[in-house]
């Protein structure tokens, strides 16, 4: 249980939240009904990322990848373009797989490591689903503008940190 909660808490770091909230806004912005496919791709991505961590892929550019995905998703939210479901699915999968890679478990036993990854996955799925629902239900003009403004904030934050990481 402790390992599960530890994994759950490991999700709540700013770069994870930026990427996941951007994805949720992006997937929910144009959805007429709940985007099950996007959530499914995100969950499959989480599993794939966990398997990659289990394969001892420790040194990876997941931190940069998450920021790039946040910039891409948030920029698309700002532009409010109609995009193909394939793009939503691919970005969901990519974000899902980058999360475990950016937060490998530090547990000694395999059971605890799995529990930690499960905690991370539960938190990530809950947050992305919540944001998807919020963005989907934002149908009034001012609500849709609010979604785009939130997208611009995420894009701006992620661009700055991305530049910082690449420059220093």
């Amino acid at each position, binding site marked *: 249980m402790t390992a599960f909660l530890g994994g759950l808490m490991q999700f709540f770091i*700013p770069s994870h939240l930026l990427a996941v909230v951007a994805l949720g806004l992006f997937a929910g912005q144009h959805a007429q009904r709940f985007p099950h496919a996007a959530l499914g791709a995100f969950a499959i991505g989480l599993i794939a990322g966990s398997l990659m961590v289990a394969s001892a892929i420790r040194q990876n550019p997941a931190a940069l990848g998450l920021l790039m995905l946040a910039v891409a998703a948030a920029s698309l939210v700002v532009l409010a373009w109609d995009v193909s479901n394939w793009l939503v699915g691919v970005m969901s999968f990519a974000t899902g797989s980058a999360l475990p890679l950016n937060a490998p478990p530090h547990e000694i036993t395999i059971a605890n490591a799995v529990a930690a990854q499960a905690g991370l996955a539960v938190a990530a799925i809950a947050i992305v689903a919540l944001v998807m629902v919020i963005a989907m239900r934002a149908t009034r003009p001012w609500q849709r503008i609010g979604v785009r403004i939130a997208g*611009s904030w995420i894009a701006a934050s992620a661009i*700055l940190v991305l530049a910082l*990481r690449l420059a220093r």
Partner: protein
Amino acid sequence: MRRRAIRTTPTPNPSPAKGRSRPSSTGYGGGELTAFVATILLLLSTPAFAHTGETAGGFLSGLAHPVFGPDHVVAMVAVGLWGAFLGPPAIWLLPIVFPLVMAAGGVLGILGVPLPAVETGIASSAIVLGLMVALAARPPLWVAAVLVGAFAIFHGYAHGKELPDGANAVAFSAGFVIATGLLHLTGIAFGLLARWPAGRLAVRGAGAAIALIGVAYLGGYV
């Protein structure tokens, strides 16, 4: 250079002393007025710490960063005021354009690309945007967006120079971007008063006040 040097001095601003001498010399003396002026000057002096060149981390630090720089605050509020004054689509376009272009300015600051007269640009943004509101200027939307975007470069550059390294960078940048956005929303909320004649006067008055604050910063009076 002179203003930069003043801003980097982490000591109490001597402005209150100026405030004490002024009332007596003008004949408006009296302890209350002196205290009032001193308090105002003291409050205005805190933003001298806004661009110290030092870095700090964390969401709250980022959130506080623009708030403790009145030159930033008034310019951000002016963006919201002007957006509300111009109405749709400027009311939402300007607050979206600003953070994105500000991020571009931040990238220049992070990369160390030299940008002259950053503090002058920030003070000028308050003057120009304040005047736009005060004069009820209604240029084409693209002109408004370019103007706001151009000033956003200076604000972003100043923030980018002070972005901390490490894990806190994300939280810090998210904090100051959100604070900037909330200041825009404050301006928009106040600017919506322009629907009524009296409110329109209040909004234009606020624009004039913002421009005056910008002049004070540009002249190095605060």
